[in-house]
């Protein structure tokens, strides 16, 4: 086999034959992006290509005037010496796996993906390939997601219980993807729903594409009065514990994340309640997706890389390798800073400082 179609460089994943980067973490000439989360879509690149349903979101996450092109799922485009197409990753609206083909050899960059049901985006599609690049954020068997409908029922029961006790329900979730998914599970809400500004502006692209969400209102001072003691407020996790919360009176707080399956993060976060909801594949989801691609070689990145590599090699007989990257997956905090990033306005966690600036500053 000739040289690897996709390699890692200081700037991120690089496809030399096509002359483009995939989800680069520094500005490059040509960026192919899998989805609009801030750790995958960064501002400053010359031009962006992403799956058509995600164009609007990617535009919101890049610099003003950025050139963002869209390509329908499944449609093929020749870039340099390769053929590129996007296929649903089931992660968030517009999220895609990137299929790259050269002379009959097929690579698929999975990006972030999940295999479970999600009414707010197209379902994950297994794409046959020779080499599959898989994330491993939750790549350990302790991560097994509960039935989303059961969790939606828990959220509703929590909300109703709070309302019965005259408390406002403050549900924290990442502004892009998770929040909309939670909303979609509450189509027949038992009370009014207010949303934090960070996600209010991210609801438009969903509704524009016909994704059904319950009625929501921006959590202004007036709306806060209306929801106080009975309504649901959805906000990014960084809003928890800030003065912004005060306008809702007595609140019960909850956090929705895959990490909530673990007691440590549940306790550390200081929320009254944790709901296990993730936009990443759990252990079985990862194994199922990898198997469905039929790939004989799997490159693992972002998360619990070593255990997944060893399991795939020893138990599944695949050629599995670590795809080294400077960026090591998502802790239960990075996910937040990466996603809330620049979008949260005044209550956002200050994610400046060394954690974010250094990668850009060094060269």
């Amino acid at each position, binding site marked *: 086999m000739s040289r690897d179609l996709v390699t890692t460089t200081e700037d991120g994943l690089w496809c030399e034959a096509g002359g483009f980067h995939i989800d680069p973490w520094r500005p490059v000439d040509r960026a192919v992006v899998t989805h609009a989360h801030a750790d995958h879509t960064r501002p400053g690149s010359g031009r962006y290509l992403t799956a058509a349903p995600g164009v609007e979101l990617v535009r919101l996450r890049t610099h003003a005037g950025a050139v963002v092109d869209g390509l329908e799922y499944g449609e093929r485009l020749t870039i340099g010496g390769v053929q590129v197409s996007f296929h649903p990753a089931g992660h968030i609206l517009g999220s895609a796996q990137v299929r790259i083909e050269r002379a009959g050899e097929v690579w698929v960059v999975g990006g972030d993906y999940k295999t479970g049901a999600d009414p707010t985006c197209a379902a994950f599609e297994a794409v046959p390939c020779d080499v599959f690049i898989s994330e491993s954020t939750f790549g350990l068997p302790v991560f097994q997601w509960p039935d989303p409908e059961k969790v939606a029922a828990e959220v509703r029961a929590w909300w109703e219980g709070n309302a019965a006790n005259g408390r406002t329900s403050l549900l924290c979730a990442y502004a892009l993807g998770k929040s909309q998914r939670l909303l979609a599970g509450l189509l027949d809400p038992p009370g009014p729903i207010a949303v934090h500004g960070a996600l209010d502006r991210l609801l438009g692209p969903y509704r524009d594409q016909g994704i059904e969400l319950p009625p929501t209102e921006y959590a202004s001072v007036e709306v806060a009065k209306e929801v106080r003691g009975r309504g649901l407020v959805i906000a990014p996790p960084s809003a928890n514990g800030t003065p912004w919360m005060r306008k809702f009176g007595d609140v019960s707080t909850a956090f929705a994340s895959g990490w909530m399956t673990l007691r440590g993060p549940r306790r550390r976060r200081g929320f009254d309640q944790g709901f296990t909801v993730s936009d990443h594949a759990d252990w079985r989801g990862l194994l199922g997706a990898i198997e469905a691609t039929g790939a004989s070689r799997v490159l693992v990145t972002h998360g619990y890389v070593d255990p997944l590599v060893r399991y795939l090699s020893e138990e599944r007989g695949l050629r599995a390798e670590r795809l080294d990257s400077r960026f*090591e997956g998502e802790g239960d905090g990075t996910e937040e800073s990466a996603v809330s990033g620049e979008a949260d306005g005044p209550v956002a966690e200050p994610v400046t400082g*060394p954690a974010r600036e250094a990668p850009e500053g060094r060269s």
Partner: protein
Amino acid sequence: MRRFHGLYRTLDATTRTSRKEAALVEYFEATPPADAAWAAHLLLGRRGRRAVNTRLLREWAAEKSGLPLWLVEESYDAVGDLAETIALLVPDQGSVREPEGLAEFIDRRVLGLAGLEAAAQRELVLETWADLDAGERFLFHKLISGGFRVGVAGGLVARALAKVAGVDRATMMHRLAGRWDPTAAAWEDLMSEDEGGDPLRPYPFFLAHAVPAEPAELGDAVDFQAEWKWDGIRAQAVRRGSETVLWSRGGDLVNGGFPEIVKDLGGLAPGTVIDGELLAWAGDRPMGFHELQRRINRKSVGKKLREEVPVRLMAYDLLEEGGADLRALPTTERRRRLEALVRAAGLPRLGIAEVVEGDSWEELARARSTSRQRGVEGLMLKRRDAPYGAGRPRGDWWKWKVDPFTLDVVLVYAQRGHGRRASLYTDYTLAVWDNGELVPVAKAYSGLTDREIRRVDAFVRRHITDRFGPVRVVEPELVFEIAFEGIQPSARHKAGLSLRFPRIARWREDKSPADADSLDAVRALMGDPS
């Protein structure tokens, strides 16, 4: 079992004291005596015993979940808690069977487990897994590994129990102190209107708060009796009838580690209770806590250890004399009696914490500045007219510790944490400069806010330059100020020294790595005991 698990979940999930207390009261009011006794026993953190070998537990979990054993170990490594890891790995079997009540559950499946052969243990554990959901399995594992803990302070449990029994909190704390078995009868005693229970029970310890930044806020210095604050094990010596026992603050009997002291105190009159500090003691000064540690948790102490680590009890306070409870007397009066008693007893292993003279905060501060030379931690301040309280009420007892040493150090390695912090990089190795190289001097875990921890975690993930097993080498960019209590020479550390109780004081975002301290500066601190 199911109800206790519900209580556990509530206590575990909320940080609000009022909600915890309400949940405790609600539980205890509606629970049969035998179950309630066990619940109180567990919530008060009384030590359980390991009922099963955890290696076997891991093997059964691998078998039941169809995973290779190494993956069970990897999962444990990531989660940081074996009980939780196995609870998550073992598949739910959709049980509908309501597990028995707490006391019966513990009797059959926890205490009963210990006496079985491995094959029978396996059968019982597998059967129990099938009967429980993931949350209950977690609790079960905690119980059989002897590691049950819950985030609720003993004082809060005592308050809830006091409410249920209709007595005041200090009375309940006294009833809870000492030995009692988790039985229905013990529960009836706790709830009863008259006194009973262990004749050797200690009094609840009186604990001090840290002095505010400006000690003058406490009022006039002359209103306080100052004593040296020793760095050992706080203990209560109870001499009643023909017996002498030493209780630790955690409610453990520690007689085994200190036989000479127990023997010595036999010279006191029955009906005497002394509050004090157990110390490793050579000549006229303490030997350092690491020596004392060799005495802790021992059933007996051999001749060699007795000679190498002599011990004594440094008396702080007199709580009972001639069988009479003295706690309501003012500090000055208790002190007068304590001095007379210690002097009259003339026991070689019973010392008395010296009173430090000083009529102003300035004078006391001067005395405090000599703490390190004396081998003490600082000063204890006791309001002269105050009674001996129960627990940690604010106002009468204060500890005024010496200021820690500090250094500016650079983050060089990071590792994932355990337990609460299992998913984040929270264990840091910190270094100082030595001839242009960074040499590790300390590992530190605590001191940052949760928010800062998440930011450091994000930094680590983006700046990894190398990996050694679980250790990540990161770009040397972040500077922290660490505080620590002392420096000891150490051949085991590359720097040739080790720091005592290092923790992160703050993140120096204003400093660059070049501004960090040097190894020479650390050596200079070691040479300077002040």
